[in-house]
């Protein structure tokens, strides 16, 4: 196929660098070293590959002087970043979820070297799930098992129709080895206070009151253990419907609970997940039941893996005393910012400027902020130093972990003159070591 003399190249088996579903069957159409189209990707994935209209890409490092950004070289930017981090008493390194594991590993080294606090976006999404699994365990499985075996699928507090658009087609509608007809062979339960587009597809929609996830789970577990509910309704749901839903869960041959932000960040946070995990464990007295968190960023899981190998803790790791410590609530990015503990911040592969609460942003506005970020974002608007990297999964390769913990190698589709996240971080580590040695 030609187009004005330019050869159209087809790249197959590309892994999508958008959400935690990490679809690995994307076909990219490349023209003139630029991705111009995709096949198989969802709308969100597609727009990441072809760049949303209006997105502004940085091609050169920039530093803020007298309120204005001016271009500098990579070497100058790396030196400046290293100076800021080496001189801080409580630097914070946040983000990490939109880059590859090898870069995250260098990030852990940089955090230890600068005695920093390092945290990833889990602390504002599935951090509560991590806390809960440390308390009560993690009965997880892989996507393949869901597709081939699951006859009861529960989505709790998540709306994959919009947030993980191919999730349902891969796990509910898809035909599996033991579920030959696909959707008709599965019972779909959605728990959501809203009638979301996912809830509209459900066989049973438990439309509970806002912030009452724990109350509902507490009642469901009591029913599961043979107790009666003594109230007419719990969490806004009639007790008869709770009995019915528990009966479906008990009869599952292979059940799966997918859960998202609607339960991890409603009232009670990690305790909602704790009691949900305990319910899944209780359900294993009847059939096989498992769970998978609906992770957002494509490699948010990867950072938790890398941080755990290297420090023993999955996120919110505090190296200030020279050894790793951990306590979300004290050492999370928002805790550090809202309590005004952090005196410098490095943001990489995420956009806290757009997502953090006002009180956290106030501190970000007061302290030096380094942004390793390819695009213009609210974070780069607050930054004092911007270092643009090549985008992993499109312009650089690397490893990412799918939401249920399966590592997948990300492809490089097109070339870029920019350094990768890993290369930038390696250079900062090297420079920090020189600065520390000279003191």
């Amino acid at each position, binding site marked *: 196929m030609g187009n004005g003399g330019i050869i159209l190249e087809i790249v197959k088996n590309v892994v999508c660098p958008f959400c935690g579903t990490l679809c690995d069957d994307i076909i990219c159409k490349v023209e003139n070293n630029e991705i111009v189209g995709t096949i198989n990707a969802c709308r969100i994935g597609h727009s990441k590959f072809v760049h949303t209209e209006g997105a502004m890409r940085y091609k050169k490092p920039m530093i803020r002087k007298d309120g204005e950004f001016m271009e500098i070289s990579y070497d100058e930017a790396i030196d400046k970043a290293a100076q800021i981090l080496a001189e*801080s*008493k409580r630097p914070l390194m946040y983000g990490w979820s939109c880059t590859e594991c090898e870069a995250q590993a260098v990030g852990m080294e940089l955090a230890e070297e600068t005695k920093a606090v390092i945290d990833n976006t889990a602390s504002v999404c599935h951090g509560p799930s991590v*806390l809960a699994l440390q308390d009560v365990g993690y009965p997880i499985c892989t996507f393949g098992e869901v597709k081939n075996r699951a006859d009861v699928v529960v989505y709790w507090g998540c709306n994959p129709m919009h947030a993980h658009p191919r999730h349902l087609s891969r796990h509910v509608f898809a035909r599996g080895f033991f579920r030959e007809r696909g959707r008709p062979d599965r019972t779909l339960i959605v728990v959501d206070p809203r009638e979301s587009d996912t809830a509209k597809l459900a066989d049973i929609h438990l439309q509970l009151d806002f912030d009452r996830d*724990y*109350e509902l789970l507490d009642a469901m577990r009591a029913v599961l253990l043979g107790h009666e509910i003594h109230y007419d309704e719990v969490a806004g749901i009639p007790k008869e419907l709770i009995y019915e839903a528990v009966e479906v869960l008990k009869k599952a041959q292979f059940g799966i609970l997918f859960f998202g932000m609607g339960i991890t960040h409603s009232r*009670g946070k990690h305790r909602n997940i*704790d*009691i949900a995990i305990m319910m899944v464990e209780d359900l294993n007295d009847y059939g096989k039941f498992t769970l998978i968190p609906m992770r957002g960023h494509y490699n948010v899981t990867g950072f938790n893996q890398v941080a755990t190998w290297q420090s023993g803790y999955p996120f919110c790791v505090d190296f200030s005393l020279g050894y790793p410590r951990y306590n979300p609530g*004290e050492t999370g990015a928002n805790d550090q910012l809202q309590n005004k*503990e952090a005196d410098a911040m490095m943001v990489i592969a995420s956009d806290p400027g757009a997502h953090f609460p006002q009180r956290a942003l106030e501190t970000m506005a007061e302290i030096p902020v380094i942004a390793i970020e390819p695009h213009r974002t609210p974070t780069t608007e607050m930054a004092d130093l911007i270092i643009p990297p090549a985008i992993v999964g499109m312009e650089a390769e690397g490893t990412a972990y799918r939401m249920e913990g399966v590592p997948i190698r990300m492809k490089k589709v097109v070339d870029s003159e920019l350094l990768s996240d890993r290369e930038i971080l390696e250079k900062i580590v090297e420079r920090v070591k020189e600065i520390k040695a000279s003191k």
Partner: protein
Amino acid sequence: MSEIILTPKEQPQVPLEAKNITPDAFAGKTIDEIKELKIWHGNIQVALSEFFDVDGESAENASEMKIIIDGDVYNTKRIGQKMTAGEITVKGNVNMYVGVEMKGGKLTVEGNAASWAGQDMEGGELVIMGNAEDYVGAAYRGDWRGMSGGKITVYGNVGSEIAEYMNGGKMIIKGNVAIMPGVHMNNGVLIIEGNVVARVGGEMAGGTIVVKGVINEFLAGFKYIGVEKEIEVDGETIPGAFYKFKGDHATKGANGTVYAAVAGNGHIVP
């Protein structure tokens, strides 16, 4: 009892970590040696005297020593960590982890305390005259064994998940509580004199919780037993009439007890 007076200089923006402020660390040291004890300022170690004036008289044994922090140390963490004897009085606010892993002695905070006051406490007495935030007397992250002994009293209000995984000892909250007091509690006594927003004793397996105020929302996992008067808790008789519940039956083999004052709690009885 000999007294050491620490007068705080200005509290810095980056918090201090002063687990060395205990009678145990000060015992047997001269005033000059105490001044040189190390505390952490962010990721840098500094001498205690950089942020505190040190005065008074030292003692050979921790049990003969009282430390008075004469001012507000709102940005100092871990005061009284692992103390075993003697006394500490803080005449102001403190940051996180006051009295963490405390084993003996008495620690009094005249102002407010941030989260994790008395985390993993084993013995001694911790008194907070003002408010405390979340996780009073809670467990370390991921641990299923929280406070195991000693006594905590908070005169003001507290936040969420106090007495989390409590295994023993006694906690008295005079003010109001947010959500989930006594979550995963296994043993011990929690007495709340104020109101509770929700989820008292969620997933509790054992222990006793008494709420003298109003419980806004209650969990369906508890079974209503009946009304009891003059209840006997921890060898002490509490006057008044209480609704008695057992649970949380969401947990296998649960045998916890929640008493809720009859006055104001009619709405939680099935």
